[in-house]
C-alpha cells in the first residue's frame, strides 16, 4: 500500500482503465500543456519530473507533422531532493523567476505525477500569486489521472474558474465559443480551426475560436462569458466544458458531434448553427451558395479522375480508420457519404469516457445504411489489438485504404493499402496551415488522399 492519498477534488471525468498499451496514440494529462501553448499569449509552467513536459510536447508536436510551437516551458524538473523534502518551495521559486524572465498574458501551472504522489500543496503556492493579481491558474494534470484529452478539459476549466470567474455582464448576441479539435493532438488543428472560424463568421457569427493562429489571444478568452452560446463541434471533447459554462454563465450549448467535411455536411452544419443562434436566413443561404458553387466546380472537375481512373489506379473502396474520435468520425462520414466508400473497420483510440460511447456508437451506426453496411466502431487504444482487429476484417473484393497514424504503416503495407496520416503520431506529413474540414478542407483531403493512392499505384 502506498502512502499516496488521491486528490478528491476531481475536475474532469477520468477515463476507463484500459490495461497495457502498445503504440501509444496520445499523451498523458500533462500533455495538455500543449493546449496552453496553443493559446496565443499563454505560457505553461510545469511542476513535474525533468523529462515529462518535453516528452509530451515532443510527441504531440515534433512527432506529429512537425508542428513546432513555442516550447520553452518553465519546469521545476523535480529531483531527489524535492521527492524527499517536497517540491512546493521549488515551485514558488520557479514562479517568481518565471515572472521575472518571461512575458505572458496568462500562466497556467500544470502538475505531473510527482507532486501528486508526494503531496505538494501546490494550490497554496499558486493561490498566493493569484491573490497578488498575477494572471495565473492551476491545473492538476498528474499523468496517472488521464490522457491529454481529459487534461485539456481540466486546463480549460481551470482558466474559466480561476481566471475568468463570475460574470453577470450583458451577453453579446451572435457571439459563439467554439470547442472542437484538440490542439496539437490533431496535426491539422491550426488550419481546421481557421476554416471553422471562417465558416461561422461567413454566416454572421462573432467567433471565439480560442486556440491557434486564428485566435486573437487572451482577449478572446476574456470574452467567453459574454458569448450567446457554446458550440461543441466534436463527438465528446468539450461537452463537459459546455455543461460547466451553461452552469456558470447560463449559456446554452449546441452539440454537433460530426465535424463537417465537404459541402453537404458543411452546409447542413451551418444551417443547424444558424437556426440555434436565431440568425436571419438569407445571409446564411448566400454564404452557403457561394461556398457550394466553388466546391462543386472543383468536384465537377475531380469527377473526371474519380470516374475515369477507378480501375487504372485501384481507387480504394473500403475504409480502415484508426484514430481519435473527432477525425475518425468526420473522415468516415465524408468518405462514405460524399465519396461513396463502404465502411470497413473504424477504431477509436483515445479512450472516450464511458458515458459518451453510446452516442459515438450511434453516430457511426447511421453511416453507410443506404448500402446496407452500417458502420461499426470499436474502442481500442492498444495498437497491437487494433491491428489484430483490422487483420481479421474481411476485405474480399475490395481495395482498402487506411486513414491512421505512423503506427499503421506496417499494417497498411500488409493490407496492400495506401495510408493517409490523419492523426498522432504522424511522421510522414509536414503540416502548416492545411485543413481537412469545411468546404476548402475537404478539397485538400481529397487531394492528399488521391495523390497518395496514385503514388502507391505508380511507384509500386
Amino acid at each position, binding site marked *: 500500500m502506498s502512502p499516496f492519498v488521491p486528490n478528491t477534488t476531481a475536475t474532469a471525468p477520468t477515463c476507463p482503465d484500459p490495461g497495457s498499451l502498445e503504440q501509444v496514440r496520445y*499523451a*498523458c494529462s500533462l500533455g495538455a500543456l500543449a493546449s496552453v501553448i496553443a493559446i496565443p499569449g499563454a505560457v505553461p509552467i510545469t511542476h513535474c519530473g525533468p523529462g515529462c513536459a518535453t*516528452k509530451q510536447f515532443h510527441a*504531440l508536436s515534433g512527432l506529429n507533422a512537425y508542428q*513546432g510551437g513555442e516550447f520553452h516551458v518553465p519546469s521545476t*524538473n523535480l529531483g531527489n531532493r524535492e521527492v524527499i523534502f517536497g517540491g512546493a518551495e521549488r515551485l514558488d521559486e520557479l514562479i517568481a523567476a518565471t515572472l*521575472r524572465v518571461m512575458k505572458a498574458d496568462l500562466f497556467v501551472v500544470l502538475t505531473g505525477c510527482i507532486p501528486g504522489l508526494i503531496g505538494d500543496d501546490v494550490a497554496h503556492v499558486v493561490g498566493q500569486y493569484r491573490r497578488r493579481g498575477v494572471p495565473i491558474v492551476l491545473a492538476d494534470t498528474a499523468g496517472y489521472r488521464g490522457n491529454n484529452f481529459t487534461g485539456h478539459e481540466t486546463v480549460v476549466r481551470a482558466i474559466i474558474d480561476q481566471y475568468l470567474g463570475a460574470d453577470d455582464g450583458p451577453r453579446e448576441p451572435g457571439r459563439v465559443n467554439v470547442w472542437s479539435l484538440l490542439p496539437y493532438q490533431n496535426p491539422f488543428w491550426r488550419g481546421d480551426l481557421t476554416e471553422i472560424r471562417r465558416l461561422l463568421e461567413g454566416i454572421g457569427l462573432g467567433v471565439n475560436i480560442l486556440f491557434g493562429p486564428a485566435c486573437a489571444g487572451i482577449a478572446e478568452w476574456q470574452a467567453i462569458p459574454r458569448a450567446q452560446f457554446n458550440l461543441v463541434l466534436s463527438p465528446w471533447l468539450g461537452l463537459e466544458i459546455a455543461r460547466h459554462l451553461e452552469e456558470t454563465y447560463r449559456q446554452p450549448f449546441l452539440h454537433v458531434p460530426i465535424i463537417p467535411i465537404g459541402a453537404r455536411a458543411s452546409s447542413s452544419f451551418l444551417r443547424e448553427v444558424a437556426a440555434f443562434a436565431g440568425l436571419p436566413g438569407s445571409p446564411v443561404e448566400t454564404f452557403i451558395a457561394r461556398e457550394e458553387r466553388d466546391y462543386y466546380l472543383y468536384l465537377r472537375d475531380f469527377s473526371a479522375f474519380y470516374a475515369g481512373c477507378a480501375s487504372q489506379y485501384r481507387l480504394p473502396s473500403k475504409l480502415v480508420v484508426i484514430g481519435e474520435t473527432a477525425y475518425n468520425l468526420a473522415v468516415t462520414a465524408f468518405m462514405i457519404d460524399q465519396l461513396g466508400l463502404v465502411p470497413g473497420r473504424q477504431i477509436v483510440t483515445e479512450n472516450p469516457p464511458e458515458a459518451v460511447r453510446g452516442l459515438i456508437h450511434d453516430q457511426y451506426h447511421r453511416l453507410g445504411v443506404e448500402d446496407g453496411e452500417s458502420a461499426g466502431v470499436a474502442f481500442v487504444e492498444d495498437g497491437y489489438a487494433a491491428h489484430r482487429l483490422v487483420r481479421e476484417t474481411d476485405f474480399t473484393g475490395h481495395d482498402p485504404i487506411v486513414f491512421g497514424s*505512423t503506427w499503421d504503416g506496417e499494417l497498411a503495407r500488409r493490407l496492400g493499402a495506401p495510408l493517409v496520416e490523419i492523426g498522432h503520431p504522424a511522421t510522414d506529413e509536414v503540416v502548416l496551415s492545411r485543413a481537412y474540414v469545411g468546404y476548402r478542407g475537404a478539397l485538400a483531403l481529397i487531394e492528399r488522399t488521391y495523390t497518395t493512392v496514385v503514388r502507391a499505384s505508380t511507384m509500386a
Partner: protein
Amino acid sequence: MPLNLRAPQAETREQRLGTITQWNGTAAQLARDSTATHGCDKGRDQGGRRLCEASTPFAQASMCAEHIAVTNATIIQESVVVQHAPIGCAASQSFTCRYYRDLAARRGWELEDPKAICSNLSEQDMVFGGIGKLEVAIRDAWSRHRPKVIFVAVSCATGIIGDDVEGAARALEAELGVIIVTLHCEGFRSRHWSSGWDVIEHGILRRLVSRDAPRQDDLINVIHLGGPDVFSPLLAPLGLRVNLVMGGSTLERLAEMSAAIATVTMCFVLSYLATGLEQEYGVPEIKAPLPYGLDATDAWLREIARVTGREDRVEAVIASERARIAPELERLRRALAGKKGFVAAGAAFAHGLIADLRELGVEVDSAFSFHHDPTTDSGDPRQDSLTHLVETWGDIPHFTVSPDQHFQAHAALQRARPDFVICRHSGSIAALTARMGIPVLPIFYSNDGLGYEGLLTIGRAILRILPRRRFCQDVAAHSRFPYQDWWLAQTSPYAPITGPV
C-alpha cells in the same frame, strides 16, 4: 572506484563522476577545477579550485534518464521494453519508432516497428500498487512477441510508490524462461538525462554479455550513440572487424562484446560500458582522446594499433587517409575561412565538435555543454577530453554548462553572435538558433564528425546550411520569444534573476 555491477541500480553520474549541469566560465578554468576536484593524482595542472556548480532559480523543461534508457533499450533488436509507468512516459514511443526505422534504413536492418508496452498506470494503481499491471504487461510482451529479452523500465511514479519491480521481474523470468532486465531509471534520480546511458549499459553488463565467448583477436567493440557505421572503413585496413554496439544492436553483438580484443567509445558520456567490459571481462578500453581532428585521429588509431598489436600497419593507414582527404580539406578550409561557429552538445561530444571546427579553420570562442563530467569511469587522464581540447586547440573563453536550457542558450548566442551553430539534440537549441537568425546544423547521427572523413562530412554540411541564414533571418525579423526585454538583451547565461517583478 570500480563499478558496482552487483546492485540492480547503477550509481548516478553525480555519485560516480561528480557530474554537474550548470557552470559558466572559460574552458581552461573548468578543466583545471575538474582536475583539482576529481583527478588529484593524475599528473595534471593542480592550479584549480574546487569545482563549484552554478545555479539559477529559473529552469525550463529538460530531458530525463528514463527517456535515454528506454530509447536505447527499445532499439535493441529482438527485445520488448515494458515501461512500468503512467501513460505519459510512453509518449516517447513514437519518437523511438521513427528513430529505429531511420537507423534500420541506414544500417540495412529489416524495417519494422520496435516493440514497447506501457503498463499504463492509473490513479487506482497509485493507491494500491501497480505490480499486477506490470505482470500483465510482461506477459503481454512475451505472448505477443516472444522476444529474447524483456526490459522493464521503472518510472518516477513507480519509484515513489515503491513497487517491487525487481521481485516481479525475477519471478516472471523464472516462470516464462525469458531474460528480464530491469532498468532503474526514475527521472528524478539524476539531474542529468545522460545517466540513462549508464542505466541501460549497467543492465547490458549485468545480463546480456556472454561469460564464455572465445576471444576473437580481430574484433573490436565500438560503442557509439547511434548512426551509420563510419568505423569499418577506418579500422578494416588494420585488419579489425567492428562490433558496433549501442545505438541499436543485436543481442548477438552485445553478447560478443566480451570476446573482443579491445573497446573504443565514441563519446565518453557512454564510457560506463567500456569501463565495465574491462573490469568484468578483461577487454581493454582504449584510453586515447577521441578522434576529432587530424592529430587526434592519428593518435587514436596508433593507440588502437598498439593495444591490438597492429602497429606495423597503422602508419600506412594514417598516411593514406591524410593524403586522401587533403585536397577536399583544403577546399573546405578556404570556404570556411573567417567563419565563426558555436557548439552546443553534451560534454565530450561537444569537445570533439569544437576540435573539428578548429581543424576546419573555423573560429570558436563560445560553447554550450549540456552537462560536464569532471572525470570518466576509468579515471584515466587520457580520457579528459576537455583538458585535451584546451591543450591542443587553446582555450574557449565562453564555456557554458547548461542542461539544454533555452533561455541560457539565447543569452549565450546573443554574446557569441556566430555565423552558424552546430548542435546535438535537434530540439530546443536548433529551433532557438534558427529563430535568432542563425543557420544551424543539428547532428542527429552522432558519428558525423569522427575521424578523417568526419572533417569532410561536417565541413560540407556546414556549407550546405550557411545559405539558410536567409530563411532564418526572415523568420527572426518577424517573430519574438516570450521573454522580458531585459532577458532578450542579456548576454550572460547565468545573469542573476532576482528582485521584484
